[in-house]
């Protein structure tokens, strides 16, 4: 089972290329409001996580995801 922090660390590493504002990424960082990902970039981000952790992420969870912490918690639920 993947650790919650593993998900977060991977997300931070992927998002650095989009982090034009040089924010310190954390669980409370918002994908759209803070980093400014477009809808297409969100889907590409999801794909990278799926490939890294060999999981399928249903699109249904995305409306409940604002922050990286939200996303990591959803991934924890999927993993369990």
């Amino acid at each position: 089972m993947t650790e919650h922090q593993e998900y977060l660390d991977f997300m931070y590493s992927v998002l650095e290329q989009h982090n034009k504002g040089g924010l310190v990424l954390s669980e409370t960082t918002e994908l759209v409001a803070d980093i400014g990902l477009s809808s297409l970039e969100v889907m590409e981000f999801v794909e990278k996580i799926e490939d890294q952790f060999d999981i399928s992420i249903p699109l249904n969870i995305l409306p409940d995801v604002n922050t990286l912490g939200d996303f990591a918690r959803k991934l924890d639920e999927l993993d369990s």
Partner: protein
Amino acid sequence: MLFEKFEYMAEFQAELDAQHVVPFGAITEKILSATEAVVSGRKVILAGTNNYLGLSFDPRCISAAQEAAGKWGTGTTGSRLANGSFIEHETLESELAAFYGVNHAIIFTTGFAATMGMCATLAGPGEVILLDADSHASIYAGAQLSGAEIIRFKHNDPEDLAKRLRRLGERTSQTLIVVEGIYSMLGDKAPLQDIVAVKQEYGGSLFVDEAHSMGVLGTHGRGAVEAAGIENEVDFIAGTFSKSLGATGGYCVSRHPELETIRYCIRSYIFTASSSPMIVAATREALQILQSEPGLRRKLWDNTDRLYSGLRALGLSVGTSPSPVVAVTLEDRSQAISCWSALMEAGVYVNLVVPPASPSTNFLLRNSVSAAHSSAQIDTIIAAYARLVDAGLIDVEQVA
């Protein structure tokens, strides 16, 4: 306040207004033929219509519609569940089923209603819809309405589909896999044989939307499934009457008798007025012509090869293989708008496609070829693009 979330659209509209360009909702003031019209005050060749076989102006289809209007009136004024099932609707369903060599067919008032309705009904809560990432909006809409888990797989990637099916394990028996025959924006074809191989290994039910491939592919024009030789492996085929058949409406066919069982469970079927009988009559005639005149499909592909080769020879980014949908890909929005406008001034109407309709962040000048185009018209379209290159509006090094 509800409109605040549409500020991006207002900004885009302002950009278009500033350039005096109307690529969306351009008004067709006069239709001259299946391939020519007066659009926004200008006579143009129609190169963005999905009228693949040119049947929207076939005199036989028009005559059938006129006769049906005289006989049945202008509309049914009811849904198929209530008073809107006329013998014409039932007959078209039988003819579609016979065309596909199956026993079951349902027709819908639009193609959107067909694919949305089927996807919304076939899978439900606790079940899974596995859809190609480039699926049409109607498929995404239906998937959302279904309540099923929605998982995307990478576009045209059977290996990625296999990975996701593997992860589902036994749940594949409750999984609907959704793909298209030809994808609407880039015109690329699904690798259906490979997809079927994956389905056979892991399980699942396969739904193929043939909106842009019916009438276009296959020895008999049945579409990508026929062309791939996998008709016995596909559970549901959906399509539209608004492209190769030149009318409006949609359908789903299946060899499963349960299609009949769910007919009155499909909300986009029961909660909307049925097709006008004149549309059904025109569609029936078009379906007969599609079957009896395979030369139309040959002409379509002759025109396709001519346009694709001509644009490719100019150095434009038009995808890896010919298709009746030929999209020129650009990276810059302003450039795409300027090119669309210049093509209109040159007398060529194409579709301008922007994200999210475009499957990536790129912009498309989307051309669709018709069997009704003459070779001279295809050459005029190519020449118009050549002028864009010569004028520096498209630098072939800049395209994606």
